[in-house]
Structures are given as C-alpha cells and as structure tokens.
C-alpha cells in the first residue's frame, strides 16, 4: 500500500474515513466501536518514511504509537561508537511505542525505516483515551505487550545459551518455508540488520555463514538454500524447548 504523501510528512490521503477503516482492520483496534475508532482516526495521521530515515531517536519525547502499514521499521539502540543492537524489526500490521507512551514519556530506543515504509502515527493522547475508555483495546495491548515480553526473554535466552552459529541457524530454521527437505527461504532483511538482530558483529556473521556451508546452508543475497532442514536442525539445535520459538 503506498500513499502519495510528501515524505516524511504526514497526510490523510483519503480523509479520516479511510484512516478509520484502516485502523478498524488492525488487530489492535478490531472490535472497537465506530465512534472509538473515529476518535482515534481524527487525531492520527499516515506518514511515509523513506528508507534509512529516522522515525524517532532515543530520548525523544514519546508522543505517539506507530503502526506499520507497509515496509519495515527497525527499533535499535546504539553505543557511542556506533555499534547497533537491534531490538526488533517490525513489519505490517505490527505496532510499537506503547511501552514508551505509557512510560516516562521518552523513547528508550531509535526507530528507522529499513525499507520505504508507511506508518500510522497514533498520538499519545488518542491512544491513552482509547485505552482508558475501551477495556478491549487495553486488553489487546496487554496481549501484544505480553508477546513482545516473551519474545524478548527468549532473545535473552538465546544470547545466553546459543553460540552465534546456533543463533543464525535457529533464525534461518524459523523462516517461513523452512519446514522439511531441500528448501530455499528468504531473509527478511539484509545481513547487517541480521547481525544486529542476533547480537553478532557483521564480520562474525560472514564467518558463521561460511561455517554453515558444510551443514548444507548456502546464502546468496537474501536467498538461503538449505540442503536438508531436518539434518540442519539436528546439527545445531541443542534442545532449547518451546521458548526458543518465541525468539524469532
């Protein structure tokens, strides 16, 4: 879905009506009354965020929740020497920023478009109004935050227990299509982002990918060929239980 907006400016390409319809279809707001959705839409806006554009920086006032309509947004922190730790990469129809909106009012991380993206910006006041008057919206948000929380704990678990090779292999094995036999799956983002997401330096990722070759894994651009999914799983999986699935 593309919107003809000046970027990275905000606009309402088809009026509040269409924004309300879009919001109403999102899992977070599904089931809310038309009046409640309309109130959120009246204060919200669609923003085009070109690739590599910073949506917000760490420490900036958390004035809005963001819902991804198209493209990908990476949420990350940086050390002062520029090293990047990617917390998560958000794709449609996920949303991010609730924890900051309801926190100390500042974003704890940076957010940048990994590829050209379209997001709905739901201002803090609109979000708080919806949450404090619509228990359904609040409970959906609780569910979404709970899933994020479990996924982050699973990431920590992987960082504690898995080697970089195992983390990369686990990530590949969790990609859509990596079910059985000989398959080719596609990385959802570039290798630099993958390294940041898995807590590995970019140069280490190249070494890890080279070490995966004897295990039947070949990576060309975004395409990953796996000779035998079951064999790879046996070779790298230490038996990490149900929580591992939540990390990827």
């Amino acid at each position, binding site marked *: 879905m593309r919107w003809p907006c000046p970027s990275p400016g905000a606009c309402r390409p088809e009026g509040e009506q269409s924004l309300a319809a879009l919001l109403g279809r999102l899992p977070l707001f599904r089931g809310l009354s038309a009046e409640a959705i309309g109130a959120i839409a009246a204060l919200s806006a669609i923003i085009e965020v070109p690739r590599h554009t910073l949506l917000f920086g760490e420490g900036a006032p958390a004035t809005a929740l963001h819902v991804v309509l198209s493209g990908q947004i990476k949420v990350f922190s940086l050390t*002062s020497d520029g090293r990047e730790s990617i917390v998560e990469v958000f794709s449609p129809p996920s949303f991010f920023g609730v*924890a900051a909106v309801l926190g100390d009012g500042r974003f*704890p991380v940076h957010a940048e478009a990994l590829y050209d993206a379209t997001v709905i910006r739901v201002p803090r006041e609109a979000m708080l109004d919806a949450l404090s008057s619509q*228990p359904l919206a609040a409970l959906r948000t609780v569910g979404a935050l709970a899933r994020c929380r*479990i996924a982050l704990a699973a*990431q920590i678990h992987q960082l504690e227990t898995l080697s970089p090779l195992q983390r990369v292999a686990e990530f590949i094995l969790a990609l859509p299509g990596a079910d059985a036999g000989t398959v080719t799956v596609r990385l959802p983002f570039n290798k630099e982002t993958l390294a940041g997401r898995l807590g590995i330096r970019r140069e280490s990722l190249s070494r890890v990918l080279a070490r995966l070759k004897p295990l039947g894994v070949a990576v060309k651009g975004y395409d990953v060929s796996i000779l035998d999914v079951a064999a790879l799983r046996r070779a790298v999986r230490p038996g990490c239980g*149900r929580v591992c699935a939540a990390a990827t």
Partner: protein
Amino acid sequence: MHVDVEALSDSAVVAAALRQLRPLGRARAVGRDEVMVRAGEPVTEVFLVQSGRFIGFAPLDSGVEVPVDEVMHGCLLGLPGLFTDGLHPFTVRAVAAGEVAAIDGGLLRERAEKDAELALLLVALLSVRLRECIGAAGEMKLRTVRQRTAAYLLRLAPRGRSGPVEVRLPMPKKLLAAHLGMTQQSFSRVLRTLRAAGVTVRGRLATIADPPGLSALATAEDAE
C-alpha cells in the same frame, strides 16, 4: 480510585499496581526455592510480588533451566501467559523468601474486561517490564561479560553513592553466572578481573569500593 497512568513514573506504576491489585488476591508467604509456576502449565493464578526475589527460567528439552528474567517487587508473575496462549512461558522460582498476593487468573481477566482503568494499569505494568527487557537484551548484545557483571552489581547498590558500598548477591554464583550469560568459571575470572576496579566478593557479599569508577567501566565502549 482513579489512577492517572499518563502522569505516573515507573515506580508509581508499580505502587499503583500494588494498591489496586493486592485486594483482589490473598496474601501468602513464599519460601526460598519454591516453584511458583511451571513452563507449559495453564495459568490459573497470577502472583503479585510484594517482597522477595524470583527468577524466571526457560526450560531446555534436556531438562536444564536457563535463567532469563529476574522478578521483584510489584511484578505480576503469570501475566504474559494469562493474556497470550493461557500457558506459562517460563518456570518461576523464588531465590529469596518473600510474600505474594495470589490472584485468580480468571477473576483478573474478568475484572480487566469490565474495568478500563484496571486494564490500563496492566498495560502500564507490562510496559515497565518490557522496557527493562529491552535494556537487558541490549546489554546482552552490546556489553562484554565484564561490563554486564559490573552493571549488575551496580544495580544492586543504592543509587547515587560515591563511597564504598556493600551489596548482597541475591542468588548463588552459579545461577548468577548463567543469568549474566556465562559459565561459573568465566564468572569467577570476571570477578577476579574486577578486583582492579575495586570489587571484592566474599561468599554472597560484594564490596564496591568506587561505584562511579565501576559505573564508568560498565558503560565504557569495548572495554575488553
């Protein structure tokens, strides 16, 4: 009582949660090493932590448990499972005796479905925990084991102290090592290297001679 979540700091969110949620449960004492919930089991009760210290473990298929989370005052054990697939994602065990309020999971859900203010409080409570998790995951990715250990010791100490301070390790060293993502042997080596930074550990007691100096080490880039 109206709770203005928008105006609340993290500590005030926790205080509000304690105030609002405690009356919904029954108080019960928890002994050290008591298992509160087990991964994979249905969420029937959630536990509001009033005191004590708890560790969330992710169980491996081999039966080994890996600590992934530290849970303290004001947290609601079982909340993530209650509002996702209804199963506990982690096993949670007490590493220090304490007290919790046990709240029926169905009752909490039912109340939150009707009471927007309570639901909003749960959002705020989870937001606090989520931000802590984001920080912990970032630490694991960007900091060395030495920096992580220094940062953990500093979190145990009262804030803003410039002089020597003594802290008690809240869990056995083996468990703490796993919590910080290293083996017990590596943890011992790290503690030895931290002696030069003024950290001495005897049993469960750690002394930090120079908290600001240790803080500088914990946040320094590529210290190793």
